[in-house]
Each structure stands twice: as structure tokens, then as C-alpha cells.
């Protein structure tokens, strides 16, 4: 793959140039503009958090970078070169790996088969699967991330949500991802499991990978992010570096700022007495 090679060369030469850069990207489905004028850059060893409510255009954005959709306006450059991906394979070959919300793991297939899906190792003249090597590598890679799955033959569907996320992330890193897109990796997880996943996100960053972390949880974003982009109705509402924003500001921005304030007043008017009453009741008992 020539693209991958030249990409790796340049990335090692200048670590702080953006690997992926979006300039004024737009995507329309007929008369519906899913996203408009979104600019974003991903650098090596940095975590760029993309925040937004449901329907803000987060999914459309990652689908463009992951090669599932093409964009209709603006410019996307990967490693300084303008690109239009026509398939996820092209995106992968450029070093961009995506870990989807639904994980892109086949639930009935075993852990090691999933780990190598699409990149199977073969040996011999008949290109037979080298299952022993694949199992060994999968075990090693998972162990590196501190994940212990005793039986790699068990179907992925039997793993916990956190374990599945970690398998998907470990797989992306093993296959030489330079950019890792994580689509709401903590959305369906409990507190402990979210912590585990966030640790792997940081590990990926420390390994020199540029991470795009999609989430609607500002707390999780602020724990790990270097750069924050908030999307609202398909446009960028906020684009700032970590040093220029506090968690409170981010939370407010994310939650809709003034809109939330209005909502809280409204709710207080309706429910204030009920809430107070309940509290009083509880105090008495």
C-alpha cells in the first residue's frame, strides 16, 4: 500500500502536522444538510473530542472519515493529500480505523476470528488460516492492554460491553491505525467499565495515535481530551483547546447552555413543590 507507507513516513517526520484535516466539510442527503462547514484536525498523540446531542451530525462526520459516506462540499485531506473515500477499505488503508458504537464485531464469531476479521493471516500454498498464530497474537495484544479473556474461542457476543470495546480498540491498534475514531465508546457502559475504556483511549494516545473521541458525555471527554469540538444541528458550535475551557463551561456548552437554563426554570415552576414535599417526607421518616 503506497498510501500507508508515505503516510507513515511523513507522520514520523513531523509529529505535529495534522494527520487528518477537514475543512468546511458538508454532507447533504437530498435537501437535508446533515452537517455544514465542519472543520476539524487530528494530530498524532492527541485526543480530539467531538461532542454533540443526538442528531447533531456526529455519526455523519465519522462516517465520512471512515469511508462509509462521501462528503458533498469542503475538503478532507489525509496526510496532506485531498481524499474522497469510496469504501471503508480505503480509509483503513490510509491508517484510519473506526471503532463503532455497535462495535463492528460479529457476535456469533469467536474472539480471535473477530480480532483478525478482514486481515486474516494465512500460510501454505492453499492460503490456509494460520489459526495458532492468530490466537497467540490476539492473546498477546489483549494482554498488553490488560484484558484477560480466558477462552478466545468463545463468541464475542458472550463478552461484556467493556471487553468488547477493548477487543475492538486493541484490534484497531494492532493493525497499525494512525488515527482511531471511537464512536461513543462509553455510551452503554457502567462507571467502572467506562473507566477501563478511557484508560485504553489514553494508552492509544500515548502510543502516538491520533484519536477522535465521539461522545455526548462532557465528563468523559474532559478526562482525556486535548481538543474539543461541539456540534449542534450539523454546525460547529464550539471549537477550543483544553487550556481555554473548564469542565463547567464544556458541560454548559454541551448541554445547550441558555436552553438548559430555560428548561430548568420551566421544570422548577412545574415540579418545585412536589420535589420539596418528597424531600420533607423522607426527612420525617
Amino acid at each position, binding site marked *: 500500500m503506497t498510501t500507508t507507507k508515505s503516510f507513515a513516513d511523513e507522520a514520523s517526520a513531523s509529529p505535529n502536522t495534522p494527520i487528518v484535516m477537514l475543512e468546511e466539510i458538508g454532507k447533504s442527503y437530498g435537501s437535508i444538510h446533515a452537517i455544514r462547514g465542519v472543520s476539524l484536525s487530528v494530530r498524532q498523540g492527541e485526543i480530539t473530542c467531538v461532542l454533540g446531542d443526538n442528531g447533531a451530525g456526529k455519526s455523519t462526520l465519522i462516517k465520512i472519515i471512515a469511508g462509509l459516506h462521501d462528503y458533498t462540499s469542503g475538503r478532507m485531506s489525509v496526510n496532506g493529500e485531498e481524499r474522497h473515500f469510496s469504501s471503508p477499505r480505503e480509509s483503513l488503508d490510509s491508517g484510519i480505523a473506526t471503532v463503532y458504537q455497535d*462495535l463492528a*464485531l*460479529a457476535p456469533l464469531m469467536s474472539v480471535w476470528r473477530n480480532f483478525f476479521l478482514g486481515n486474516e493471516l*494465512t500460510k501454505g500454498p492453499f492460503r490456509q488460516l494460520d489459526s495458532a498464530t492468530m490466537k497467540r497474537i490476539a492473546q498477546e495484544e489483549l494482554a498488553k492492554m490488560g484484558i484477560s479473556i480466558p477462552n478466545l474461542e468463545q463468541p464475542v457476543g458472550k463478552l461484556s460491553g467493556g471487553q468488547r470495546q477493548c477487543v475492538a480498540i486493541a484490534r484497531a491498534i494492532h493493525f497499525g491505525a494512525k488515527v482511531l475514531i471511537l464512536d461513543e465508546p462509553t455510551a452503554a457502559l457502567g462507571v467502572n467499565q467506562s473507566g477501563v475504556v478511557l484508560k485504553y483511549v489514553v494508552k492509544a494516545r500515548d502510543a502516538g495515535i491520533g484519536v477522535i473521541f465521539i461522545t455526548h458525555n462532557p465528563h468523559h471527554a474532559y478526562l482525556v481530551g486535548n481538543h474539543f469540538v461541539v456540534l449542534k444541528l450539523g454546525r460547529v458550535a464550539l471549537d477550543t483547546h483544553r487550556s481555554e475551557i473548564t469542565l463547567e463551561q464544556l458541560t454548559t456548552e454541551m448541554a445547550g447552555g441558555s436552553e438548559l437554563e430555560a428548561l430548568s426554570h420551566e421544570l422548577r415552576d412545574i415540579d418545585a413543590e412536589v420535589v420539596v414535599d418528597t424531600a420533607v417526607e423522607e426527612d420525617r421518616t
Partner: protein
Amino acid sequence: MASTITSPASADDRVSSRSIGARLLSRPEIGSLVGAAVILVFFLIAAPPFRDINNTGTILYQAALIGVMAVPVSLLMIGGEFDLSAGVAVTTSGLTAGIFAYQLSLNVWVGLIVALALSLAIGAFNGWLLMRTGLPSFLVTLGTFFILQGLNIAVTRLTSGAVASNSISDMDGFSSAKAVFASEFKLGGVTIKIIVVWWIVFVAIAAWVLLRTQIGNWIFAVGGDAAAARAVGVPVKKVKIGLFMAVGFFAWFAGMQLLFVQNGVVQSGEGVGKEFLFIIAAVVGGCLLTGGYGSVVGGAVGALIFGMVQLGVVYAGWNADWFKTFLGVMLLLATIVNLVVRRQAEAR
């Protein structure tokens, strides 16, 4: 396999290692193997001719007639689709080879090659239309089923004036082709039809492809979760179209067997309803109707059960009218056994 990795200190001790028994039980074909054993013992007791070694060849032949097509149908089902046109496609292939060679007075082998091209094209068309429209394979192949069924009868009547194709038994290449597709030989006093040998070869190759090659891994993946497979770079369209073309190839093979075993004549109405027998064999063999799980060996065992029941009913001296009822009961039992076994295996 012996692992050289020492497990991390924080190893999760809630998971105990699985016994060999549990691993065996988690194989998809285990339910059908148990079923086959039960049926074998049952008919050995209930039907005296069943014990005659000479009848083994006949039972295997019955099984192979379904089994050859159960190979690609199992693969296709694991790949998440199914093909209702598979039964009539066999007849279409046999008719094409016969009519083409007869009408143009060509060597029989030329007719065979034309039939092969057509069968692969039908498979490719099914797959392409499916991927192009996104319709369920049930609808797409139901359409092809009726198209082919109509064509089989209409074209045969147009060319031969009857409901069967003209015999090609006296044409060049017939005997050599018959030797390949429909001959028989003696093995220790048992007459073995050549298609039984082909069947075993096909099952072995397909099982190897499914479990030990990249293509096999992709078949499981496109059936288990097509979107996930696509996202990691598996060429979903190519795999699915390829599976339908595999059905086409095997339909051609079964069609040639049909042509040469009947001395070069094919009845144009044949094959209707066979598609369900292929599907039954695959499902009895442990293939999940929704895709992503199953085995080729299971499909073969399913076909073997079919052969044993079909002849067992006759050998036991029962009225053969009951065969279909028996088959239906078998199908339900097998699916229930599969369900229970899989839940048991997953729980360990």
C-alpha cells in the same frame, strides 16, 4: 493450544475453563449427529432390510441427491441468505445441457459447459439483484424460482414438443460425461454411485474452506453482521454474490447427475419443492436460519438423516405416504434439539 502468555495478575477468576465435553457440545452439528445416531438405531431395529449392507449404497445415494445441494445451501445460509430457486435451478441446468447439445447437434460436453455458464449466471443474477435492491433473499429467489419453473416447461415444450427434453444418450461425449456424473462401482460387494463420492469430496472441501480459510471467515461474518463485516473491510457484496454462484455451480453438478442418470432425458417439471429439502438438511444440520452460525458437515448429516428416513420408512414396510409427515416432525425436533444444545453450550 498451549499458550506461552502468563495471564495478567488481574485475571478474572469467575471464568473457569471449559471441559472437552462442553466444547464438543458447542459444535453446530452435534444436534444432528445425535439425531442421526438415534434414527440409525431406530431403523436398524424397526426395519430388517436396513441392516442389509447392500442397502447402504442406496441410502447413501438418496442422501447424496440432497446432500450435494445441501453443501452450498448450508454455506449460503451461514452467509445469511437462502435460495428458493435452488431446486428448479438444478432442472434448468440439466435441461439446458440436454436441449443445447441436441438442438445444435454438438458434443455433449459443449452443452455441459453452456449449462455451467448459465447456472453460474443465474446465481450471479440472484446475488446481484439481492445486493442491488436490498430486498430479502426470500423474495428475490422466489421470483427466480417462478421464472425458472416457467422457462423449464415452456422452453422444453417449444423445442421437443413434450414435457421432457429429447434424449441425448446416442450423442458424442455422452458416455464419458455419464462416467463422470452418473456411474457406479462396487466396493466390497456394495454398489456405490459416483455421486456419493463427489458428495463426500465436496463436503470435505467446503468444510475446509468454511473453517480454515479467509473466505470461510468472511462467510461467517457477512451472515453474522454484514455491517460489521463491511466496516472492517470484508467485501460483503462479493462474498454474497460468490455464495449464490456456488449454489449455481452445485445446481449445475446436480443437474448433470439428473441428466445422465436418466439416460439423457430430463423431465421439465422436476425439482419443484426440492429447495425446501436442501434448506431442511441445512437447518437440521445446525445452520442458523438468520445466518452467522452453522456447519457444512451438519448439512451433510442433515442430508444423511433425510436419506435414512426416506428409505427407512420403505424398508420398515410402512406406507410411504407418511414420509413427509415424518420429515416435518424431524425438522421440528432437530431445530428444538439445536436450540437446547446451543443454549446449554453457551451457558457453560
